[in-house]
């Protein structure tokens, strides 16, 4: 047995930047688990998680919240959903599996993503410069989620409040994404 103890570190070391009208900060209290739904069992999986958590499976590019609003489901593909939820333990996969109690395939993806929240009254102006999809408040209402490319980086964008967006990029692109956002902030302010 070795004497080493491994401690987890977030992708951006909890980066936090405040600007006039927009805050950019790393999201460190959320986990992301992919739930792959076996073919032809969507209705079964949905009724199982409805029973256990009060969650229905969202429509494409939309999200749903559990009855205690601790778990959010995102739908970006036909045959799978992503569960985005508050959890600070070390095994989010088993945690979600036991909560959902559904016959689906669970894969923990929490640490493979860098999650950055951009919020504040100027957040939309900042993101409009780098996001190719339409994030007009009417077209992209609170709860919308989409996968696209920003500054050549594959990104998931989720609107979690009126003036609040969470961006997810692959962990190794986290710093580049942070830089892209900061450049956009400087251009806008």
């Amino acid at each position, binding site marked *: 047995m070795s004497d080493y103890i491994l401690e987890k570190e977030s992708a951006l070391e909890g980066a936090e930047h405040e600007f006039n009208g927009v805050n950019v900060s790393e999201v460190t209290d959320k986990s992301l688990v992919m739930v792959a739904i076996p073919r032809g069992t969507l209705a079964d999986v949905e009724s199982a998680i409805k029973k256990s958590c009060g969650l229905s499976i969202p429509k*494409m*590019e939309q999200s749903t919240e559990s009855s205690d609003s601790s778990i959010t489901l995102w739908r*970006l*593909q*036909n045959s799978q959903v992503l569960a985005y939820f508050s959890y600070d333990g070390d095994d989010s996969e088993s945690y979600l599996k036991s909560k959902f109690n559904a016959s689906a395939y669970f894969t923990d993806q929490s640490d493979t993503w860098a999650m950055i929240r951009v919020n504040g009254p100027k957040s939309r102006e900042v993101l409009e410069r780098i996001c*190719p*999809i339409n994030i007009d408040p009417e077209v992209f209402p609170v709860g919308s989620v*989409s*996968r*696209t*490319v920003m500054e050549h980086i*594959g990104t998931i964008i989720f609107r979690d409040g009126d003036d609040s967006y969470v961006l997810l990029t692959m962990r190794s692109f986290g710093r580049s994404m942070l830089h892209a956002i900061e450049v956009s902030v400087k251009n806008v302010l």
Partner: protein
Amino acid sequence: MIINHPLLGPRDSEEFVYLGSTDLIDRPTNWEEDASSEDFYQYQYIRDNIAGNHRELWYHEQGDQSWLVVTRNTITHEITNVELAQDVSRAMGRGK
């Protein structure tokens, strides 16, 4: 160029990668027969150079990783139809 994804709505073509003609779906299945070498030669090398509506495969690499069959006019670049390659392939009796 905007590709109207059947599930995700209008997306910039920058998010996609182009592969080629939809004929690529129709890979010969007679590889055990003598005639297969001619069929594979046709499949692998012979292409129509269409001036007009062309059905082609696009991959949504920076999106949901789906394969699409896009009908595009090679002269005007007008896109008239977009389908999921999965559906097209099943309609052709391929796959599961």
